[in-house]
């Protein structure tokens, strides 16, 4: 197996991008990544594209070919493959690209993610996202994602000392970071009051506990580590790539307040990288809802089970804390174009490791982690990246 490096990254701004269609989004992100790697398109050997549901969001399937075509690579006949794992599509696309390079099958590989979500009404997007759960056992009987995560939050708050204010602090912290990220959908800071006074979505989760509907695309380019300096002075090494799965339904889990797939993927990643949570300088976790960030930082080992609320309220996950979490603003403030999120997490960590994160830069950042979840935790991808 060869070592793999990220040699270029690109990301569109995230938001309700009324004037950009699906194609414009991924072409923009891809062009930015190529420019970053100072690479021309014909050097690309393969592409993996994370996308959850273009079929339902824009009634377009066959995304792999579409993207290769609109990237101007149709006549190069390179393999271009769509990867789908609900909201973890981006994380899995990155992992496929890493595997392709590590195996020696390909050299220069694009991992991209794209989602155009605002062309359908909110009800339709909520229903499309429900496809990430079990349609027969959850969706058909009325469960939506806010509802499922509300069950996790209710169970968690029943068993562990998490206050409503501590939960709100997750969103407050992520908005603070988003306000320092030029690509973030929401650029304004909020207070705990903002969260507590916002509209109830699914008790106990309010509007500001929920990540938004977002348009956006991100792309990264990976290459064999020993060739990386042909393209960049600051190659970022992929130290670990891990993936795990779990029951697709929430009710079949051993414990609904612990995402066992996160635990498994996290342990595997640390083992592969020969590192522990103490070595991580910052982590991008999958905060589709505020409670998801609480569970994630515990399940990845950054604090003990039941302590994430206090840990967050004490500022340990803030930019200046012990382990800065979601420096990009996370899904909550940066936005959540589902298929693109996993790639955007890599984009953020690479920016941090290259010391290019501006006002949200973590001092002396050497090792970062990404955590991307599909559904309520049926798929999890964890990556560890390092500056070498």
């Amino acid at each position, binding site marked *: 197996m060869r070592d793999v490096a990220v040699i270029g990254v690109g990301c569109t701004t995230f938001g*309700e991008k009324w004037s950009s269609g699906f194609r414009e989004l991924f072409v923009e992100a891809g062009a930015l990544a190529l420019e970053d790697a100072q690479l021309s398109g014909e050097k690309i050997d393969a592409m993996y594209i994370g996308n959850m549901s273009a079929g339902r969001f824009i009634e377009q399937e066959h995304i792999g070919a579409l993207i290769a075509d609109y990237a101007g690579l149709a006549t190069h006949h390179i393999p271009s493959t769509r990867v789908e794992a609900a909201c973890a599509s981006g994380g899995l696309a990155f992992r496929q690209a890493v595997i392709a390079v590590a195996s020696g099958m390909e050299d220069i590989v694009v991992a991209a993610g794209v989602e155009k979500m*605002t062309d359908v*009404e*909110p009800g339709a997007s909520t229903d499309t996202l429900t496809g990430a759960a079990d349609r027969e056992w959850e969706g058909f009987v009325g469960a939506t994602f806010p509802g499922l995560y509300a069950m996790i939050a209710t169970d968690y708050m029943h068993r562990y000392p998490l206050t409503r204010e501590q939960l709100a602090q997750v969103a407050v912290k992520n908005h603070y970071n988003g306000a320092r990220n030029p690509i973030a959908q929401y650029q304004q800071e909020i207070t705990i009051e903002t969260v507590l006074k916002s509209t109830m979505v699914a008790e106990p989760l309010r509007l500001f506990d929920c990540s938004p509907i977002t348009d956006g695309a991100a792309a990264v380019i990976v290459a064999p580590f020993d060739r990386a300096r042909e393209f960049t002075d600051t190659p970022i090494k992929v130290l670990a790539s891990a993936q795990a799965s779990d029951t697709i339904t929430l009710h079949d889990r051993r414990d609904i307040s612990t995402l066992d797939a996160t635990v498994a993927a996290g342990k595997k990643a640390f083992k592969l990288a020969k590192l522990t949570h103490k070595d991580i300088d910052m982590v991008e976790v999958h905060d589709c809802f505020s409670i998801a960030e609480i569970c994630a930082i515990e399940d990845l080992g950054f604090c003990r089970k039941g302590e994430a609320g206090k840990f967050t309220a004490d500022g340990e996950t803030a930019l200046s804390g012990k382990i800065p979490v979601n420096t990009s603003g996370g899904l909550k403030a940066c936005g959540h174009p589902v298929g693109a999120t996993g790639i955007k997490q890599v984009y953020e960590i690479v920016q941090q490791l290259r010391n290019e994160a501006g006002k949200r830069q973590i001092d002396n950042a050497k090792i970062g982690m990404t955590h991307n979840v599909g559904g309520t935790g049926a798929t999890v991808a964890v990556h560890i990246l390092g500056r070498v």
Partner: protein
Amino acid sequence: MVGIITYGVYIPRYRIKVEEIAKVWGANAADISGGLGVFEKSVPDLDEDAATIAVEAARNALLRRKIDPKDIGAVYVGSESHPYAVKPTACTVGEAIGATPNMTAADYEFACKAGTAAIQTCMGLVKSEMITYGLAIGSDVSQGAPSDALEYTAAAGGAAFLIGRDDPIATIHHTCSFTTDTPDFWRREGEDYPRHGGRFTGEPGYFKHVEGASSLLFRQTGKSPKDFTYAVFHQPNAKFPQKVAKNLGFTSEQIAPGLVVPTLGNTYSGASPIGLAATLDIAKPGDTIFVCSFGSGAGSDAFDIEVTDAIIDGKFQRDAAPGVEQLLKNPIYLDYARYAVHKGKIVMQL
């Protein structure tokens, strides 16, 4: 010079408060009112529709100025809620005010800007001397589906403007439009309620078109916001016109007289025409009024208007018909049940 000869407004007396609607749907009234800047809206009586409102507004216009209805050569009624899909509201109005039969008539639909489109049509016919007077009306019993965001604002009302050449109370110096094919809000044939693209109705809809038409008018006339005493914008809620006015460089004082939506609601085709009427209600000779409508689908019509001495001479009697302020006074509040009856939301056995 073409201008407004007289004008009239009609607003039904019934109101429902936002909190009464919010109570039914388990929504937070303070959040809704805070977000929209709307607190109550007008509701038609059981026997009122876009046609009766148009007739009342036209009659109020003619009460203010003695002209021979037979000199009205055109009647255009803009509405999203014409009572008939086929059979013009404009004919009913023409008949009711005694303008028939030597006149042309048609119904207009351009979401919330059909009333200002009617004004532009009348201006053209008057300018080309095809007619002496043209009557342009925007009138709606606005539709909003139960529990939809529109239900909190969709109101009833209308305004009529008689357009002519001789001795206008306000001269229309210039008008221009900005139009694109933008699907931000629509209602298909046979559907009871409009659908909309949520926040897509904002930036790509309202703001793009209102700012587009306004900038075009400034460019074509060489004028700027400081050249106007007052400004009137389409007002689906209070926030949009306040924001667009600020973006364009108008002050809150300039838009205050024409911003009637907080206690009236959104009267769709009647909205910017009623805003203009409310401004004319308090205007003095020499005052200048900027108007920009917006209709989803989408387009905006902008107007450069200057009030003349005729608004205070004896031929035009502003007090002969009720002003907007008076029409908004002494409302009768309905609970949601009576509101549902008034709006025909309860399905009756035939």
